[in-house]
């Protein structure tokens, strides 16, 4: 008892608190932000190499620009579709009462538990025209021959839940009485929603758009698998798949480094510029929402139209999200079994889990303090800048981030270049913001007077956090850690870009598909799905039990 008391006193001292926060901020800047954008310095230091290896070579430039244009086109289309079909779904979840709502609520999150590599394989088998060697089940659609279309369909699967969740979260905070007031003032339901609720929506919309856009822009593993699963992808590349492919070759061919740097730089810069533009456009521009068309809107508010909208929303979820996600099960069930060596897969699976666990622990230990600092010093300029910087690793495509981070640590040779360490650092960089974002979001909802009252009642800051704040933000911490864990588990792009020869589970599945071992890849996907799902359930169970004991 004495010892813990002394420890509590020590960490509550002003000096310790100051240096602890300084350390947290330094960690964030040096281990997360700096490596993420380090490759941008290559525009100074390595310009000659980029000039001679890339810019002077028209074919390479065309290839890079084509891939990057494809990436941004896909991300934009995916985001728009997500919004159009996600909004009615968020609406149903928040505002409507019906049987099976809980089930629907759970179904939405299902794709989040599935690593994108497995999703890519699963949706490609369902949608795409596949090579005959694959033996796709006869009831697979097998219709899509355009790589671009396939990737769009795939990206919708895993970005859709993010959009629905962000929109639903903000919708829950918007008081329904505004709409009711609008309706009593004579507006039809649709008019009230469009002119009153939607404009209040901006914050959630920004979050949703940023999440979907950046997820689509980053995605590597699923995209690569989908492309190699389909019959004829004809050299189609997105920015991240280009990085993945070249990084693998760069081990034997260092000439590729300038090309990799160039792709990464373009991806990072365009992503950041888009982030700024998006924030400005959505927050500042006044949409012409004021105009009203009473008669058509009244017609659209009644009778069949709303019912059709809800029906379509549910059908979309089933047909475009759930069936493609889990089609892999029917593929494995209908395929003839093949014998394979499970050793490498199980090794890679264990390795992936270890990485994801370590990464989540680091995220929590160092992310929660940063979130506390940001949300409890809102007047300070530093916390405002930190708040903006936290978004950077979220929006930067992970493949570019991985490459940049790998170059940063090997160029500086500050730490021994142990592949595992580099992978952990890379995964921390892009999962860290998930924890910080979730916790800051929750903290903003909590009146600081709770902690302040606790302190005047005699609680040291750390006791106040443990006894008062933590129970209130626990669910957000949990949400953040689930996101960080599953993102790390499913990540392919960053892993491949930071070190080319380490095999995590998703990377291993990519290899299986590339070598046409479809059945094994399918089984591996299913195992990955089941294990991630079980991990999520376990995490939920553990935290619930703890709650009971409090």
């Amino acid at each position, binding site marked *: 008892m004495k010892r813990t008391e002394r420890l509590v006193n020590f960490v509550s001292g002003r000096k310790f608190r100051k240096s602890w926060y300084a350390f947290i901020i330094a960690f964030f800047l040096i281990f997360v932000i700096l490596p993420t954008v380090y490759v941008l310095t290559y525009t100074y230091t390595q310009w000659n190499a980029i000039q001679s290896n890339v810019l002077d070579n028209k074919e390479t430039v065309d290839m890079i620009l084509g891939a990057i244009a494809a990436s941004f086109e896909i991300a934009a289309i995916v985001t728009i579709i997500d919004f159009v079909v996600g909004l009615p779904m968020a609406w149903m979840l928040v505002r409507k009462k019906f049987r099976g709502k809980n089930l629907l609520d759970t179904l939405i999150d299902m794709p989040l538990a599935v690593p994108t590599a497995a999703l890519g394989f699963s949706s490609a088998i369902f949608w795409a025209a596949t090579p005959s060697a694959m033996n796709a089940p006869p009831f697979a659609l097998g219709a899509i021959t355009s790589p671009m279309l396939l990737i769009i369909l795939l990206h919708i699967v895993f970005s859709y839940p993010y959009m629905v969740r962000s929109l639903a979260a903000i919708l829950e905070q918007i008081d329904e009485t505004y709409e009711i007031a609008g309706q009593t003032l004579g507006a039809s339901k649709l008019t009230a929603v469009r002119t009153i609720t939607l404009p209040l929506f901006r914050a959630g919309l920004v979050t949703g758009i940023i999440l979907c856009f950046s997820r689509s822009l980053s995605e590597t593993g699923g995209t690569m698998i989908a492309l190699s699963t389909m019959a004829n992808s004809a050299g189609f590349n997105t920015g991240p798949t280009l990085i993945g492919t070249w990084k693998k070759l760069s081990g034997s061919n260092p000439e590729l480094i300038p090309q990799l740097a160039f792709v990464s730089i373009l991806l990072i810069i365009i992503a950041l510029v888009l982030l700024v533009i998006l924030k400005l456009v959505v927050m500042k521009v006044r949409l012409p929402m004021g105009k009203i068309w009473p008669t058509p809107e009244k017609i659209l508010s009644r009778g069949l139209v709303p019912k059709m909208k809800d029906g379509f929303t549910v059908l979309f979820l089933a047909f475009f999200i759930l069936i493609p996600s889990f089609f892999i099960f029917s593929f494995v069930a209908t395929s003839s079994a093949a014998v394979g060596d499970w050793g490498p897969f199980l090794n890679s699976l264990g390795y992936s889990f270890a990485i994801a666990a370590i990464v989540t622990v680091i995220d929590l230990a160092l992310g929660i303090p940063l979130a506390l600092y940001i949300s409890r010093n809102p007047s300070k300029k530093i916390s405002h800048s930190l708040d903006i910087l936290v978004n950077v690793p979220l929006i930067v495509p992970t493949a570019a981030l991985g490459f940049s981070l790998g170059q940063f640590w090997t160029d500086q040779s500050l730490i021994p270049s142990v592949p595992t360490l580099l992978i952990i650092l890379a995964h921390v960089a892009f999962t860290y913001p998930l924890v910080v974002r979730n916790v800051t979001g929750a903290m903003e909802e909590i009146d600081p*007077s709770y902690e*302040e*009252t606790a302190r*005047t*009642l*005699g609680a040291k800051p750390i006791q106040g956090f443990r006894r008062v704040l933590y129970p209130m933000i626990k669910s957000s911490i949990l949400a953040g850690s689930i996101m960080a864990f599953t993102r790390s588990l499913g990540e392919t792009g960053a892993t491949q870009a930071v070190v080319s020869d380490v095999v995590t589970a998703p990377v291993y599945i990519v290899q299986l598909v590339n070598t046409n071992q479809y059945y094994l890849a399918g089984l591996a996907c299913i195992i990955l799905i089941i294990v991630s799902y079980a991990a999520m359930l376990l995490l939920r169970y553990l935290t619930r039990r703890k709650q009971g004991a409090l």
Partner: protein
Amino acid sequence: MPEIRLEGIRKRYGSIKAADDLELSVKDGEYICLLGPTGAGKTTALRIIAGLTEPDSGKVFFDDHDVTDMEPEDRKAVLLSQSYSLFPHMTVAENVLFGPNIRNWSEEARIKTLANMLDLVRLTRRSDAYPKELSGGMQQRTALARALASGAEVLLLDEPLRALDARLRISLRYELRSLAKSLGITTIHVTHDQDEALVMADRIAVIRNGKIQQIGTPIEVFERPISPFVANFLGQSNFFQGSVTYVNGRTEVRDEQGRTVAAGTANVEVGERVAVGIKVGNTEITKEHDGYLQGIVERTLFEGRDVFVDVMVAGLGRFSSRIPAGRSGEFSVGDKVSIDWSPEKATVFRLKDRSLDDELRVE
């Protein structure tokens, strides 16, 4: 229980001065009300005493110990916020035991304190309820019990009655005060409600723009305000501006239109520019004789026991008078009336180079 002393406290938020050379001293066991309009710096003063806000300069003393740099948890000064901040995930008992748990009291001491405190605030039966299941008054009492159980020596109340409905607010005034007084706790109670301050306080400190304007017993600040602002904030006043024409035993003031009014003695000189303040309760209106001013009844406001009669005086604006409800039939809108008062009930304020509007402005 400690005495509290603030010396030269300054605190700025951007261009706003929340504390501007704030001086205040509170005696051991005293119940003091910090009264002022919204944005006057009341809450800032309270937070500085609690240690939650660091002053830009100046010092805070508890019993002659400089506590300016002391952490809030070491001050034994408990802040009760407007919303009570009862921890929503804890029951009444757990909330009350928060302080004892943090300080690691013995099991025996905890049980005893809990029983005492719940008994004191009459919540023994609700000890297992969660805050959201309690009424506003019960929440308030829980918060109070929690504060007292932590061994508080100073109670800092930030608009503690604000969230309650009107009737409960009035009955809790006496309860809150007598509880604090019986325990001998030094209490600082922040409010913008003058009635609350008048009823509850040993002394009232009127604060404006981060400065204490006047401090004294309720009778002192009500009867002998030192500025037009205090006169108007505690029991609304009517004002007449002009120059002093006569001083001896009483003061006479004439305005530019030649109207002359009389007021009590004041330390002013003939020719000086002054304002005369008359509380609405001391402003009489009559049809029988000629008073100081003439006007036309503009409206009457029935408020139960009293009636407010607003009279428009040409060139001066609206004068209000509070009369007993029984006399309400005497005046109707459009009547010509006279306004009168006993000179000793009217207070003279020197204006120097400031305008009356600036003096009265409530930011």
